C-alpha cells in the first residue's frame, strides 16, 4: 500500500494513545485540505525551503530536477522518485511522500507501540482517504483486531457502501467527516456530492458501529446556522454516535502545500474567531449534541 506517513503517539485521532497511518490518495479535493500532500495517489517530492542549506548535493539527480538560480528551484515534473536527492540531502529539506509498504510492514510499525495502547488506544487509518486503498486497509485492520489492537478509521465517507460493509466487522470506531451539508457548496469546495457520504454514515450506524462525527468549520463557507442545524439533525438520528468534534479551519496545511509545489487556494477569511467557535459549540450543545473537546 502507498502510505504518506505513519505517526506514533497521535493525540487527536480517536481515544487513547494511537498510531495513525496516513494513506496516500483522496477522492475529495477540499480547498482547505490540511494534508494536501496526501491528496494525490502518486508519490510526491516535498521541498522545505527553510531547511535547505544550499549545499547542492541534490544535484546528484540525473533528471536535473534541482537547479539553483540564486534560489533552489525544482523541475518537479521530471522527478521519477528515485530518492537519490533525498538520501544525499543532509538537512532533511527533501522528502518523498508516498512509501510502498506491505500490510505486514505497516502492521509491524503499529505494533511497536502496542504496550502504550492499553485497551483504549490503537491504530487509526487516516489519509488522504483511508478507504481509497480499502483492499489493503481491510487485511490491516483485521490483523490489528486479531492482535487485540483497537481500530479506528478516519474517513470522508466517499466510498462504495459494500466497501464499508466489508470493513465494519474489524473497525471499532469511525471518525466520520461531514464537510458540508449543503450539496451545492460540497461540490464546489470538495469536487464531489455529499449524497453518498451521508447515506454511508447512516449505513454504518445501522450496523451498530460507533462513530464520532467530525465537522470542519470554515468561516464564510459552512459556518452558518443552517449547516449546524443540519448536522444536529443528522447526529440526532444516529444511534451509535459518540459526539461531534468541531475542527475550525487553520492555515497550517499551507506549509506542506507550499513544500509540495501546489498553489494556495486558501483565503484568510476562512479562519474562525473564538467567539464564532464558541457560538457553534453552544448552538450544537443547545440542540442536545455532545461536543467532544480535544483539539
Amino acid at each position, binding site marked *: 500500500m502507498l502510505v504518506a506517513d505513519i*505517526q*506514533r*503517539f*497521535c*493525540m*487527536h485521532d480517536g*481515544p*487513547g*494513545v494511537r498510531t*495513525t497511518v496516513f494513506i496516500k490518495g483522496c477522492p475529495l479535493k477540499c480547498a482547505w485540505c*490540511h*494534508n494536501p500532500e496526501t491528496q494525490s495517489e502518486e508519490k510526491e517530492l516535498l521541498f*522545505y525551503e*527553510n*531547511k535547505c*542549506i544550499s*549545499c547542492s*548535493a541534490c544535484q546528484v539527480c540525473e533528471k536535473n530536477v534541482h537547479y539553483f538560480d540564486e534560489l533552489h528551484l525544482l523541475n518537479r515534473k521530471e522527478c521519477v522518485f528515485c530518492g537519490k536527492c533525498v*538520501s544525499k540531502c*543532509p*538537512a*532533511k529539506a527533501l522528502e518523498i511522500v508516498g512509501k510502498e509498504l506491505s500490510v505486514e510492514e505497516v502492521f509491524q510499525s503499529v505494533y*511497536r*507501540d502496542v*504496550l*502504550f*495502547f*492499553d485497551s*483504549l*488506544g490503537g491504530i487509526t487509518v487516516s489519509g488522504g482517504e483511508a478507504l481509497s486503498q480499502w483492499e489493503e486497509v481491510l487485511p490491516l485492520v483485521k490483523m490489528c483486531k486479531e492482535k487485540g489492537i483497537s481500530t479506528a478509521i478516519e474517513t470522508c465517507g466517499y466510498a462504495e457502501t459494500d466497501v464499508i460493509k466489508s470493513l465494519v466487522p474489524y473497525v471499532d470506531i469511525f471518525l466520520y467527516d461531514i464537510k458540508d451539508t449543503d450539496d451545492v457548496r460540497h461540490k464546489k469546495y470538495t469536487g464531489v456530492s455529499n449524497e453518498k457520504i451521508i447515506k454511508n454514515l447512516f449505513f454504518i450506524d445501522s450496523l451498530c458501529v460507533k462513530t464520532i462525527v*467530525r465537522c*470542519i468549520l470554515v468561516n464564510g463557507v459552512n459556518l452558518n446556522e443552517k449547516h449546524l442545524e443540519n448536522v444536529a439533525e443528522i447526529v440526532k438520528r444516529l444511534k451509535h454516535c459518540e459526539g461531534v*468534534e*468541531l*475542527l*475550525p479551519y*487553520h*492555515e*497550517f*496545511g*499551507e*506549509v*506542506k502545500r507550499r513544500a509540495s509545489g501546489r498553489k494556495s487556494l486558501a483565503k484568510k477569511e476562512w479562519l474562525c474567531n*473564538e467567539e464564532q*467557535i464558541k457560538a457553534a459549540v453552544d448552538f450544537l450543545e443547545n440542540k442536545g449534541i455532545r461536543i*467532544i*473537546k*480535544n*483539539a
Partner: protein
Amino acid sequence: MKFFAVNGKRPTRLSEKTRAFAWESLNHKYGLDTAKDPCVVMDEYSGFEELSDIKKYDLIIKDIAEKSRIRICTGEKISGAATFGLAIKHLVPATVNGHSIFSSVSHLTIDFETVLKKGVNFIKEQSISAAEQYKGTDKEEFALSCVNVFDCFEIWHKRYLDELKDREELKDNYQILLKVPFKPAESFYEAVQSIWFVFSFVRLCGYWTGIGRIDWLLGDFLKKDLENGKLTIDEAREILAHFFIKGCEWICGGNYGSGDAQHYQNIVLAGVDEFGNECTNEVTYLVLDIIEELGISDFPTTVRINQKTSPELLTRVAQVIRQGGGVIAVYNEDLIIKSLTKRGYEISEARKFANDGCWEVQVPGKTFFTYVPFDSLRFLQEDTLKGYEAGVSFNSFQELYAAYVKTLSIKMEDLLSYVNNERFLQNKNQWTWKPTTPCSVISVFESGCIEKGHSYLEGGPVYNVISPHIGGLTDVVNSLYAIKKLVFDDRKVTFEELMEILKNNWEGHEYLRQFALNKYCYFGNDNDEVDAIAKDLVAVFAELCDEINDRSGFDMPGGISTFGRQIDWAKTRMATPFGKRNNEVLAANFSPTPGTDQIGATAIIKSYCKADLTSMASGAALDVKLLPSSVKGENGIEMIKGLIKGFVSLGGHFMQLDVADIEMLKQAQEHPEDFQNLSVRVSGWNARFVTLNKEWQDMLIAQTGSEF
C-alpha cells in the same frame, strides 16, 4: 491569587485563608524573613576553637535551639520553623570569626515512622542507654552528643510551647505540641504536626531530609479519624496543605539557577507496603489535590506505579501532571523492588523504598547514601579518543567499543580508590571509617547509628551506599553509533579524517555535520540498532559496578544521571561525531540528546526501556516533555495514562513527564534544534513544531491556552 498552570485553571478546594497563606509563602515572604538572620555566632565562647569537633558541634546545636528565632505565622495550623539563612545554603548555621564551621548532610530520608509510632522520647531513651553502654569507650562521645540533640530539641520545643500558650487562636497547635513529637501520635492532626516539628528542627540545624512515603505514614491515622468522625476530609486537606505551605518557607525568589525546589524534601506516594498490599489511601489523594491546587513544587513528588495501580489513581496522577511544572514523576515500583532484591535486600525492606530527596532509590530511615557522578562522554573524548589527536585509530567498531569499555573499567578502578581513600582508614577487608564531620542531629533519626555507636557519616546506618552515576551515557551511545555508521558501515569518511574534523569543531564540514546530525536515527527513536549499544553499555557499566562492589566497604549500585551537570560539562566537551559542536549542552540523565529524538514520547520511552534497568538499583531517570496542546481535552488524560502504563510494562525506572508551557514554545522557536520532537496537532493536521516557520509558530503560541 493566580496559581500558575500550563493547562487551564487550577481547581479550588482549600479555604481562602489557606490559599492566601500559600500565596504569600510562594511569593517569598517567609524565605526572605529566614534569609535575613543567617546563623548563630560562636565567637563569644572562649576556648571554642580548642574544643574537639563534637564538643563544638554540641555547643552549636544548643545555641541554635536557644537562640534561633521562633516564627509563628498568622493562622498556621502546624507550628515550627527553620529560621536560619545559612541552613538554606546547606550548612549547619553557625560561624566563628565569620566562617561557617560544619557542612550539613542531604540525600537521605530520615526515619519518620519511629517518630510517629514510638515518639521522639523513645529514641532519646535509646540514646541514653547507648551512652551508658558505651561509657568509657571511644563511642561515648558520640552517644552523649546524641543525648544532647534531644536536650536541645526539648529546649526549642519548650520555646514554641511558651510562645503558643497564650494565643487563643493557636490553642490546637499548643495542645498538640504538648504531646508530639515526643510521644507517639494518635490522630492525623498530631501525626502531621509530629512530622513537621521533627522536619523543622532537623532543617533548622541545616540538614536537608526527604519526607518519604507521607501517605503510608499518615494513612491509618486519617482513616481512623474519618471513621470516628473526628475529622472531615476537607479539614484534613487544610491541615496537610499547611505542611506543604510551610515547606515553602525557604523560597527567597531571585535566580537560583536550578530552581527553588532544591532542598531535597521529596515525597513518595502510593505503592505497596512491606507485606505487598497496596497502601494508596485518602492521604495519597489529598497530596495530589494540594499539588494540583497550589502548584507547589517545593516537595518534588514521585508516585510508585505498578501493574495493578488502580485506574482511579492513574487518572488523578495524569490530571496533576497535565497542570505542568513537572512536579509529579513516576516510579516503576515492580522493577525497583526487583532491582533491590537482586542486590540482596529482603523483599519486605525493598518494598519500603523511598528516595534520597532526589530520585535515587533508598530504604528510608536506615540508609547512608551518596553518589559519585562522572561524565562518560568526556572519558570517550579525552581517554579513548585522546582528545581527537592524530595517531589514534581503530580498524573496526568492535575494536573501538572494546577500547571504550577498557577506559570505563580503568575509570571505575579510579573511582573505587577515590571512595575507599576518602572514607576508610585502611581497606584490607577491615573497613574502619575515617572520622569526619559530626552530624548527630541526623544520626539520631537514622536507624543503626545509635545501636552501632557510629554517626551517619561513619558507617552508622543499616545500609551504606555509594553509587557510581554514569552521566553523558546517551551522548556516548550516539557518538559510538555515529562513528559506526559514518566510518565503518557507510564509509562516508575515514576514522582519521573524522578525528581531524572533530578536533576542528566541524569547521568547513557543514555538509558532513548536517549529514551526521540528520541522516541517522539516534537513541530515543526506537531504533534497535542504536538502542542495542545503549543496552549493552548499561550492562557493561552494571558489571563494572559489581566488580568494584566487593572491594569496597559500601554497597555500590549503579545509577544513570546528569541532573543539571550537562550544563557544566558542556564547558569541557568537544564536538561529537553525531554533529554537535564544542561546548553544546547535551543529553539530560538517560534521555535522548536534545534535537535527536524525532518520533515522539512513545519512541523515547521504548529506547530507554530496552536496557535492563533492574541492574541500575540507584536509578535511571528519563525526562519526557509534552506540549500542553497534546495532552489537552478529554483524551489528554488517556494519553498520559497510556505513556505511564507503557513505561511500567516495558521496564522503565523513573520518568518525569513535563508539560511545556508557552515560554517553552518560545524557546523552541529560538532554539529549534533542541525541540525536534515537539509535535503539534490542531485537529486534522499534524507536523513537528519546528518545521513551521515563525508566522505559524506565533499563531500556535497564541493558541496555547485556549480550548481549540
